[in-house]
């Protein structure tokens, strides 16, 4: 990922409406993001674009992810 794209993504992950997501998403960027394939990284960018409550419900297991493309990254977020 280009430096600028990563900078934008980092800002959008670390300045959320919900504290829960600030922590969960920045930690994921620090610990897991580099190990993802380019395609998986794009899926993460898509997830990071979701509304805060919807994304937090997926990560906290209060809702199930029905999109098979997103589900593997959601599973990683849950464990991270």
């Amino acid at each position, binding site marked *: 990922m280009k430096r600028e794209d990563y900078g934008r993504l980092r*800002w959008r992950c670390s300045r959320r409406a919900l504290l829960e997501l600030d922590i969960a998403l920045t930690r994921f960027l620090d610990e897991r993001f580099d190990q993802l394939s380019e395609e998986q990284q794009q899926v993460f960018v898509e997830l990071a674009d979701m509304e805060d409550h919807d994304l937090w419900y997926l990560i906290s297991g209060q809702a199930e992810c029905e999109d098979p493309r997103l589900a593997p990254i959601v599973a990683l977020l849950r464990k991270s």
Partner: protein
Amino acid sequence: MSIPVLKFDAVIVGAGGAGLRSAIQLSEAGLKTAVLSKVFPTRSHTVAAQGGVAASLGNSEEDHWHWHMYDTIKGSDWLGDQDSIEYMCKAANEVVVELEHYGMPFDRTDNGKIYQRPFGGHMSNFGEKPVRRSCAAADRTGHAMLHALYQRNVKANTQFFVEWMALDLIRDAEGAVVGVTAMEMETGQVVIFHSRATIFATGGAGRIFNSSTNAFINTGDGLGMAARAGIPLEDLEFWQFHPTGVAGAGVLITEGVRGEGGILRNSSKERFMERYAPNAKDLASRDVVSRAMATEIKEGRGCGVNKDYILLDITHLDPATIMKRLPGIREIGIQFAGVDCIKEPLPVVPTAHYQMGGIPTNYTGRVVVPKGDDLASVVPGFYAAGECGCASVHGANRLGTNSLLDLLVFGKSAGDSAVEDLKAGKAHRELPQGAAEQSLARISALDNRKGGANVYETGLAMRRCMQDHAGVFRFGDMLKKGVDKILEIEKAAHELEIKDKSMAWNTARTEALELENLIEVAKATMISAEARKESRGAHVRDDAPDTPEFPNGRNDKEWLKHTLFFPQEGNKIVYKPVNMKPLSVETIELKTRSY
């Protein structure tokens, strides 16, 4: 260097509830209005508000704004200004119904009215019994509100500058505000927004504390900018805390956990609440529980390597009960404490939640500062609303559901005042020479400094200092030491160094600029708290205990007054009287605050 200048009638900094509400007034009046936001508007922290918005609609039972006014004054421990409080409680019905007309999907009763539920501290008939006054949209009230306000702004042609950070307030030689400087994050370009009206709606600064329920965005940017421009900060010693946030993370653990049988334990596994509240134990009120936790930590009975947290134990509960009655709690423990609460207790600490103080305004949303004998002289062109403003309606403590009301009422009144002032027809005042110099110098210093302080380490030192020395329960000696420490940390915060010098999306630079704002609030909080030698509302001191002469430690004879902290004038404090005179009704006379 030539800096681009963008000209607007009004510039609003912040796109949470207060900013969006004020923008509607200006745009719908046909004024050219810009809203600057660090994030997309619907990512503002208002989204996190769940509780609801208070209004005495009386849809479920009899209610009256005068009763709401009484509750708010009592909640404020009589530090709130009674004119502002009357204004807010009276305006509540109108702003809630307006919001409904903007498309806010409030919960409804069977006959189609807005459904109302009870909320702590809201009573009927001047404190007699609980009343249903909170209007909500499921558990997403803030989210729904922000979407409704944003749509209305899109319709009204408000111009949004998304992912821009405001840097400094621009004042002319007479002290009037003529705009702000701001940086576009995508390019790193600094621009002057030249305006006839400038409204700050930048939210709170909860990130000054190590344990805070606030999202990372709440860095008090408006307060920092105001402070650097010589505007005093009001009543910053008053912060509302929640007893149980996850230690180290701040994520809120609902009080329902103690309701279901959760027990607080210290390092020797003792159920210490038995000593502090023999009857209610772990179910004692928020204040009592928070104070007991802080005392245990201060006296060395905290848990962990640093002895700085308490354990919330629910391992004795049936796992099925935990999963059914406390949804999401297990996941919060696993995600943010690395603990499965079914098997191990959760580490918790009292956690900062809401800032009662802020930029001093009157109930019209105009910023007011001392000038000569006048303690509340209007700063031309400058307005503030929401958590960053201090009208002051929350005084020493805020009632639940009054924060969403505050941002609607004072967002609107700040917008209306700006429209009124602009219609008086004044042209743009001239920009002073070197209007962007301060901002450019700050950025250049960050980019060029060698051997300066590390942003992360300095921020951490500030947050720990605030948590340890000015937390939920305050001790005179700790506050004194805290003042010395925060002044040391302030030096480092003005000597920051960043490694990344790039222009586009440089988050290191943005975080350094945010820290320069946070430190202003941290310093104001510590010094104001040390100076106030009584207990009142959320400011509770060990050396100002409950006595017959001073019930709850409150000393009205000496301390029924607002703090105004002037960082630009040698950290001077000036006190101004509380406005005890409402707009149309009799004064709500002083009483001991007890529930």
